């Protein structure tokens, strides 16, 4: 820090913020304490203004930010603009825009890269960050519109790109995957990187009915909450048998007791696929639904099979507008090992996104679109065969139309017409 800066900082005083000061107490990390520290060290008036406005929100129980339009050259998304509605009251925080940055898959960082981000962010912005947004962005929070382009250019030279916002493909999210997890059934990190790079244009330029999210979980534990939180939920699974190490099963029984195995593994299997024969675990893999429970309890003894791939569920989304929707199976299994496998996946999703782009209403997610037009129509349009894995059970609604049972003659007539 230069001498001049230090002199400036001695004069820098925070304003009283009695309401949010209450959040400095207690054992959990205090963001208020953190903000004050950075404000005092850097003398950044924007941070002081934000603290003042936040304290005012606490007093009045209302929010005071409104959106606008701020962007970088060539992109139509990625910067969340925030202007204060009460800038006359708190002129130090009239602008507080956020830059959404796409992290590396799995939210892995080197300290070198994080320090570079911090230096650039301190130079151009407030020094405040959110790690991470619910969709998976690294959010640099608090920059003026005039500094956004220069800040982005420096970040982009280091390989950082903006994430999505509005009616775009949004930043993806992946679990820790093969970097550290024995349950990862495909390379979540590689597939995340490749798919989201492919969709860069749709990430940066809003041209869809609404948002489209991808999440990549290596196994059905679904650590990225993808079934609930994403339009395209890519979940690792396997087709062959669970691998059992009976020696480890015996050790498990020795350590925990046979009652633990019965009460917490065998009877908790949702399809009763496990039986005990002497001291050996027997799994009827035709009954197994790949729920992961027994593997979670006995990670040493049990492992996913070797014929691995993914299940694709489509249509998950949050509350707006028809209530929460969970994704549902569109592809029960596809391999995800080679580059050709990933390309085939992208081709399929492309057909879904194209269909939705053509048919989706304004602000309609693909799940809502499928529900409105009907899944039969959707499957036909994207060229997927209906399979029984797509449903929990066949219809119980008695009113249905099962094609027209055309005779050959009728088909000929239609073809001629």
């Amino acid at each position, binding site marked *: 820090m230069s001498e001049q800066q230090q002199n400036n900082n001695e004069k820098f005083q925070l304003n009283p913020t009695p*309401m949010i000061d209450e959040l400095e107490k207690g054992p*959990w*990390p205090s*963001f208020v304490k*953190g*903000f004050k*520290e*950075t404000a005092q060290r850097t003398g950044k008036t924007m941070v002081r203004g934000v603290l003042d406005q*936040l304290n005012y*929100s606490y007093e009045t*129980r209302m*929010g005071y*930010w409104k959106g606008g339009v701020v962007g970088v*050259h*060539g992109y139509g998304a990625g910067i*969340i603009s*925030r202007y204060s509605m009460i800038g006359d009251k708190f002129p130090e925080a009239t602008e507080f825009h*956020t830059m959404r940055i796409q992290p*590396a*898959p*799995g*939210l*892995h*960082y080197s*300290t070198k*890269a994080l*320090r570079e981000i911090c230096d650039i962010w301190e130079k151009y912005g407030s020094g*405040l*960050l959110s*790690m*991470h947004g*619910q969709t998976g962005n690294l959010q640099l*929070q608090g920059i003026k519109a*005039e500094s956004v382009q220069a800040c*982005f*250019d420096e970040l982009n*030279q280091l390989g950082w*790109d903006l994430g999505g916002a509005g009616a775009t493909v949004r*930043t993806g*999210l992946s679990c820790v995957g093969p*970097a*550290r*997890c024995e349950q990862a059934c495909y390379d979540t990190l*590689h597939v995340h990187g490749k798919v*989201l790079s492919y969709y860069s244009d749709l990430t*940066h330029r809003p041209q869809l009915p609404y948002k489209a999210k991808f999440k990549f979980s290596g196994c*059905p534990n679904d650590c990225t*909450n993808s079934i*609930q939180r994403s339009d395209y939920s890519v979940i690792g699974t396997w087709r062959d048998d669970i691998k059992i190490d009976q020696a480890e099963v015996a050790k498990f029984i020795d350590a925990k007791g046979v009652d633990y195995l019965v009460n917490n593994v065998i009877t908790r299997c949702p399809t009763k696929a496990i039986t005990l024969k002497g001291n050996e675990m027997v799994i009827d893999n035709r009954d197994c639904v790949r*729920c*992961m*429970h027994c593997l979670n309890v006995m*990670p*040493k003894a049990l*492992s996913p099979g070797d014929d691995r791939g993914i299940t694709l569920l489509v249509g998950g989304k*949050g*509350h*707006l507008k*028809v209530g929460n929707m969970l994704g549902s199976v569109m592809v029960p299994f596809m391999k995800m090992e080679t580059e050709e496998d990933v390309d085939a996946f992208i081709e399929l999703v492309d057909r879904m996104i194209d269909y939705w782009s053509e048919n989706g209403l304004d*602000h309609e997610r693909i799940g809502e679109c499928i529900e409105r037009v009907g899944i039969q129509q959707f499957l036909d349009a994207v060229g997927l065969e209906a399979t029984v894995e797509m449903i929990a059970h066949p219809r119980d609604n008695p009113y249905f139309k099962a094609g027209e049972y055309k005779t050959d003659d009728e088909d000929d007539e239609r073809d001629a017409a």
Partner: protein
Amino acid sequence: MATERTWKTIENGPHELDEFLHPISLKNYGKWKYHERPRPGVLKHVAESGDVLFTVRAATHRQVTVDIVRRLCDLADRFADGHLRWTVRNNVEFMTPNAANVDSLIAALEAAGHPVGGTGPSVSAIAHTQGWLHCDIPAVDASGVAKSIMDALFHDFAHEEMPNRVRLTTSCCEINCGGQADIAVVVQHTRPPRINHEILANVCEMPSTVARCPVAAIRPTTVNGKPSLMVVEEKCIYCGACFGACPAMEINHPEHSKLAIWVGGKNSNARTKPGNMKLVAHGLPNNPPRWPEVSELLKRILAAYKAGGRDWERMGEWIERIGWKRFFEETGLPFDKFMIDNYRHARVSFNQSAHIRF
């Protein structure tokens, strides 16, 4: 500042990964054998090669600063070979092959104000939203609510004493960006939007605002000679969906925007299928800076779950076993008619059987 741009944007999407992985991760990529949890907040992964990688998981503020991140980098340089990662629940993770580093790292993290925990059957950090700090439509803060709740539940972050893992979320509007959870705190509006007719025609696209309403309660009208919108108040369900499309549909209110508690949501496929959370309390006051009524209620629900849940039962699975009647008895929460669904497909949530617990 230079006005002429010399840099041409490279549209690459997510950042390259390889240089960010811990060398032991890279070496054993896709070749992990099993893991153990030696103590709360610590994972031990063993690779097929025999390599071992310890992970220490610690809480963060989520709303962090360059100073906080640089300090975490210092710790990663000292103890984790210059690498670190974040979880989807805002925890930071340090990895090291060196068992001797684990205790020193834990001590250094806790000295720096980052409690270690959030693994196994604990209450992990809250997945939350932006709130008054940054969002344009929030009725409540997010970071402050999360901080207040986790102060109250601190013990159960640092200890693995729950039947199974507990996932919490908070959301500052009914869009519920926090997501499904074992327990979720979500804003609940209790009045229709107040319509600012003066500005509406200038700031809102009216057809898309009309289309945004889930119950078709918004209609075009004319007020003082100006085109505007009206809300059929008997139909309005106070969701606030219109406010996101049109800032003139003022849904937020210091008194009438309240908080509701939802329980039993689940994302994992383990045992039961993923499922949505259910309403168990509503009308809680929006009471900054500490929202004590919310923390008290969460503590009560968690105490009942901790006492009654069996090993591996998530909140929703525990309730499924004991039944909703006993859930309300054991938590002391009052059940009321507003907890019975009356929206689309409501009937599937009714008890269409003679299964009754007495």
